[in-house]
């Protein structure tokens, strides 16, 4: 799709940025995909001029699909501006909506998100729990991102994951699945059976509402076990 002329024409309506995850040491932006809520490759998202996520692309990889995501991003950007203006004028309800949307889009680091949530009075318990969940997931993404960016070792990433888990924070099953598969694959390449077994155990402990995903993880575990058995 990206090779075709209609895409080049569409490209004139946006600023095109390509992030190549390379495994090359010193590439500090390798983990950025996780900050933008991307858990698979290739991944496309529309960002504002500050690099803040507005809309992940979830539709077809076609010019029409990209246009649709771009329109959604513009709507989100306009909605954020409206909420911001209303909040500045004293509307606390808009302030709560603004905080929720910005936490959902991961516009803040987890630490900054926690501070903002702590300082925002008047949220009911359910909403506070939801926003805490957004921050928790961003915290897991931060660990994944640091690992992919090579600022965390395999062991440190697992230690930080477990430390976060012990606080009661929970990742989404898809995110946890990605993390533990990633750990298992790397442990296989290092022939670290202890970590492979740990990762397999964690993968097996995940539950998925989507039966296809559950089956995929089951297959992934089988393949990992085959890799162990073959000594690869």
């Amino acid at each position, binding site marked *: 799709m990206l090779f075709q002329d209609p895409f080049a024409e569409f490209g004139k309506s946006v600023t095109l940025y390509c992030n190549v995850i390379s495994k090359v040491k010193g590439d500090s932006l390798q983990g950025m995909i996780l900050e933008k809520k991307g858990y698979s*490759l290739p991944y496309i998202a529309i960002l504002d*001029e500050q690099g803040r996520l507005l809309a992940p692309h979830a539709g077809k990889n076609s010019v029409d699909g990209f246009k649709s995501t771009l329109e959604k991003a513009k709507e989100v950007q306009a909605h954020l501006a409206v909420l911001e203006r209303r909040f500045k004028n004293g509307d606390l309800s808009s302030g709560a909506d603004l905080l929720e949307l910005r936490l959902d889009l991961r516009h803040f680091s987890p630490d900054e998100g926690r501070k903002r949530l702590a300082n925002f009075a008047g949220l009911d318990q359910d909403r506070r729990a939801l926003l805490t969940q957004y921050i928790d997931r961003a915290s897991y993404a931060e660990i994944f991102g640091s690992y992919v960016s090579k600022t965390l070792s395999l062991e440190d990433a697992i230690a930080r994951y477990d430390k976060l888990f012990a606080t009661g924070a929970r990742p989404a099953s898809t995110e946890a699945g990605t993390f533990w598969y990633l750990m298992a694959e790397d442990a296989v*390449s290092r022939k670290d059976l202890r970590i492979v077994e740990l990762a397999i155990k964690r993968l097996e402990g995940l539950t998925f509402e989507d039966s296809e995903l559950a089956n995929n993880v089951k297959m992934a575990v089988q393949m990992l076990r085959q890799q162990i058995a073959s000594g690869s």
Partner: protein
Amino acid sequence: MEKLIRLVPWGMVWILGLAFAAPGFAQDQEDQEELVVRQQKKLSSEFLKRASWLVDYDEARSRAKADGKLVFAYFTRSYEP
């Protein structure tokens, strides 16, 4: 691993995708020089020449601000055919 990804159904890609991106994957065996070669090869891909792609994040944000446009961010990997 390339063989592995072809063997799995499409829905599996979400969970395998970042695993391929993992820095530790076969890292001990892989030469950083080879990874740089692959990265450069990806950065000289034909699709990047067919439109005005930027690969510098700061430049992309500055350009977006100057032009009043949003950023279309495409994340890919360098070691994919």
